[in-house]
């Protein structure tokens, strides 16, 4: 091991419940192992730091080929939730609550609590300037811990020497 601290940067570009967790889990593991963590939120990933959205991230069963009926504890093998059923009102909420339950069962906290743990552990969070402009957001719209709104070029400067993971 070298004296220089290893650095990891995550780019979060998705705002669905399932896509919020990879950076949280890996970022937390990195911090626990003494690795410097930076997370850049862009496009739909802005939902993960948006106060109004962070506790309402969802997962839709439509066109999600990995979401099988067996997740609900019924022995249906490889049978998926039919797209035609998935379009019914309430199905996204149903799939979301199912996923939240599964996440809680493995002891992982909800997104907002998890993100706060990362901030407390020293992770640096940044919001993408272009997305902020596009979506009409302001720094006040973001959760505590978001350091600044930065450009793609700023991000390149601040992640020199870091391993970058795009999610």
């Amino acid at each position, binding site marked *: 091991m070298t004296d220089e*601290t290893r650095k990891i940067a995550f780019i979060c570009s998705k705002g669905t419940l399932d896509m919020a967790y990879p950076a949280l*889990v890996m970022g*937390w*593991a990195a*911090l*626990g*192992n*003494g*690795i410097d963590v930076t997370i850049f939120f862009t496009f739909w990933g802005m939902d993960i730091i948006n106060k109004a959205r962070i506790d309402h991230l969802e997962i839709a069963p439509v066109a999600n080929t990995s979401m099988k009926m067996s997740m609900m504890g019924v022995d249906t093998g490889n049978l998926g939730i039919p797209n035609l059923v998935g379009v019914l009102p309430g199905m996204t909420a149903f799939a979301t609550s199912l996923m939240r339950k599964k996440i809680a069962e*493995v*002891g*992982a*906290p909800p997104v907002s609590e998890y993100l*706060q*743990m990362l901030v*407390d*552990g*020293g992770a640096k969070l940044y919001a993408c300037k272009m997305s902020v402009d596009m979506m009409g957001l302001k720094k006040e719209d973001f959760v505590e811990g978001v350091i600044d709104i930065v450009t793609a070029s700023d991000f390149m400067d601040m992640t020199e020497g870091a391993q970058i993971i795009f999610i």
Partner: protein
Amino acid sequence: MATRTIAGKTVQVNDEGFMTNAAEWTREMAPELAQGEGIAELTPAHWKVIDFCRESASNLDGKSPTLRQITTGTGISTKELFALFPKGPAKKVAKISGLGKPEGCV
């Protein structure tokens, strides 16, 4: 399997330097192990974490609890835990407590 002498006693360690037999650990070893991790002095707050980990490990097959289990179990905040064991508390806590790396992800 390598061995190492800590506080005058020879113990078994793995390639990464974690003790492999939690029963070989004694409280007298902790200060020396902590110094190896860059922690000059163990305060009562450090001991609160170490004692909690030792106690939890008996139910975890000699593995250290995860950071979240430590914060919820001791009441010590995440911020404080990272200040007590800077730059990688997960591994440092496990090493100082004479336990294996935590196996959970959270």
